[in-house]
């Protein structure tokens, strides 16, 4: 599975490019609209082409991401997958209760994080050492909150609550508790 940093990188490039083009376009429009001899009517054909373009863009965005972002399909159909490992985690009183002090994962394993809240709505996210996010989900009391993830890169990860649960929620951090190791057991 492609690492989520690759997806973020792609998104950053695409959106930055869009913003630059749009700002230049608006600057051009602002300049041109104050010049010229007389106004011209925009042809309806241009308008309908624009509408068609927006429609194709709106729909195709999700089709493209569904087929290119690897976790999208796995997430929606996670009940059809057999996880290699399952970690059951409980959240209560602004604290995580982990199955063990260190959760060791083999490289390429599909791992299910099954997180339960006994009181408030929390979040559950996995973060790299440079603070970038690997993934997150909401943890709602009274419901099953599970996420299936395939780890393609070795490393050490931190768990953090990603949903506001009152001022105490800021400190819901379990540093370096997830470790992904390659088959020989050596951390790269």
């Amino acid at each position, binding site marked *: 599975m492609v690492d989520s940093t690759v997806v973020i990188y792609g998104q950053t490039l695409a959106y930055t490019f869009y913003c630059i083009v749009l700002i230049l376009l608006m600057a051009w429009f602002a300049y041109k609209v104050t010049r010229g001899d007389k106004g011209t009517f925009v042809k309806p054909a241009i308008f309908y082409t624009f509408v068609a373009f927006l429609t194709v863009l709106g729909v195709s965005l*999700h089709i493209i991401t569904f087929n290119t972002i690897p976790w999208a399909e796995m997430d929606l159909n996670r009940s059809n997958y057999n996880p290699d490992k399952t970690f059951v985690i409980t959240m209560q009183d602004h604290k995580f209760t982990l199955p063990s002090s260190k959760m060791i994962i083999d490289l390429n394993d599909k791992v299910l994080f099954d997180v339960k809240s006994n009181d408030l709505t929390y979040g559950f996210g996995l973060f790299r050492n440079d603070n970038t996010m690997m993934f997150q989900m909401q943890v709602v009391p009274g*419901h099953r909150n599970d996420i299936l993830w395939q780890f393609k890169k070795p490393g050490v990860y931190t768990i953090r609550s990603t949903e506001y649960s009152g001022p105490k929620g800021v400190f819901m951090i379990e540093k370096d508790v997830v470790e992904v190791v390659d088959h020989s057991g050596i951390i790269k």
Partner: protein
Amino acid sequence: MSFIKTLISGEEGLFNGDTLTSMQKMTLRFVVVGLIFYGFVVIEGMLMRIFEVTPVPFISQPQFFAIMTAHPLVGIFGSTYSIVFGAFLFLVPFLMKKPLWSIKMAKWNLVFVAVGTLTFWTAGFISHYAPLYTLYWPLPADFNQFSVWGGTFFIIGIALVMVGSTLFIINIFKTITYTPEGWEKQPAGALLGSALGIGGFKNLFRKNKIEHLVSLPVAAIARGTVDMAFNTGIILFTGVLILIYMVASILGFDLKTTAIDALLYKNWFWWGLDLIADGLVLIFVAGTWYLLATLITGKKLFMQNIARAALLVELVVSWTVWSHHLLSDQAQPGILKVLSGEMVTAFELITQGLAFFITLATLWSARPLKMTNPLKFLLGGLLGFALAVPAGIMQADVGLNRILHNTQWVIGPHVHVAILVGLTMTLYSAIYFLFPILTNGAKMHSQKLVDIHFWCHLIGGIGMGAFMGMAGLNGMLRRSLYVNGEFNTYMILAAISGTLLLIGFLVFFYNIVMGVGIKGVIDIFLPAKVKGKNLLPE
């Protein structure tokens, strides 16, 4: 004129409060109150930004989150609602060429919104009640963390704003449909049908098309007001629900929070809240763009029948998109995530894109235009939404939401750019347009200051959104604190952008005050000397 004389009497002494009608005064009061609350929001934003960079001794962590709770609500209700209410309560009668149904009700409307906003702001400030505006169940009723009395007053404040909103809704629909004294009987049903789009929808199946009875901007205001009515009902109901838990706690009873399903509550709450963000804001803004484009150009709106139909589509879409807020909730049914969260939400790209194109095409048809203040702020507003809507569409995707939800991306390039650049610049455009009309010919103190306001606001708003977005893409969460300064570079850059916004606002406020003078500002709040329900002096 000397500085002191201008400060007291306004630019060239042109403003004379004695000449204002009740309607003009009422509208100006809404705008002044809205701008004061906007000042609250800008200062709060700067305080939070400073605290995010380095904790300061005069703000505690609970206070920080209390500010964060009040901040969006003061911005939406205290500022935006006030300005929008004032503008639309003036524009609907202005466009329909009939008096407002009730000026008295409009005055009470302002009182409820202003007092309600001050109440919940003060309650949060004193008690540090901070469940944040999302109020995820059972957080608002978690009295281990929050004072029950603070929460009670907070909810009462919100309820007062909702009562004010109800008065606005009644006044708008009554103004559209009522028959003024001495007038020929108005077709109330047909007017309402035209405003809501029923007439236009029936036209699709008629051979002989019936003419629209209300203008396009009035239709936009009416349709946005429908969303406001639903939203008001949901927030009032939710407030009463939370209040029951609070009053029970005060009386010594501990009600079972698990009686309410947390996910069902979340769906309910987001359905209602989204009627603002993805409903009335987009509809009101599109309607305002259309109105401003036609007023600036003096031309008919490009593709106006399609624009009218798109407003109806937007209304229906706004009822069915809430699930994009629950894409990271694993218990939320997949079908709702894909249909409501992704596909229907993508319609907003189309409807908002249409409004963007139609407005630009209308302006283009009247070339060459003078770059007036309303025009430049209108272009800024259009740019803001064109930047913010695609950012929202990206996060409303099952795949991308997994790495964007609750990060600064959501609140930066999407929310802050939409509100600060898109919405606020559109409102500024309307204010600059209406200023001479509402003040009977008063002038802005300085055109240079208007230009400074424009550039500070535009660069500050986009800059803030951009740096928050970069922080979000690098993993920074919203509604959180990083005590080790992990994202300080981005936050300092966002703070510099915020400073530009603050400078822009102060310059604008100074320019307005110098335009009408302190005497004029006071005059606005005194009873009108021109009696009657006329919009403008005869």
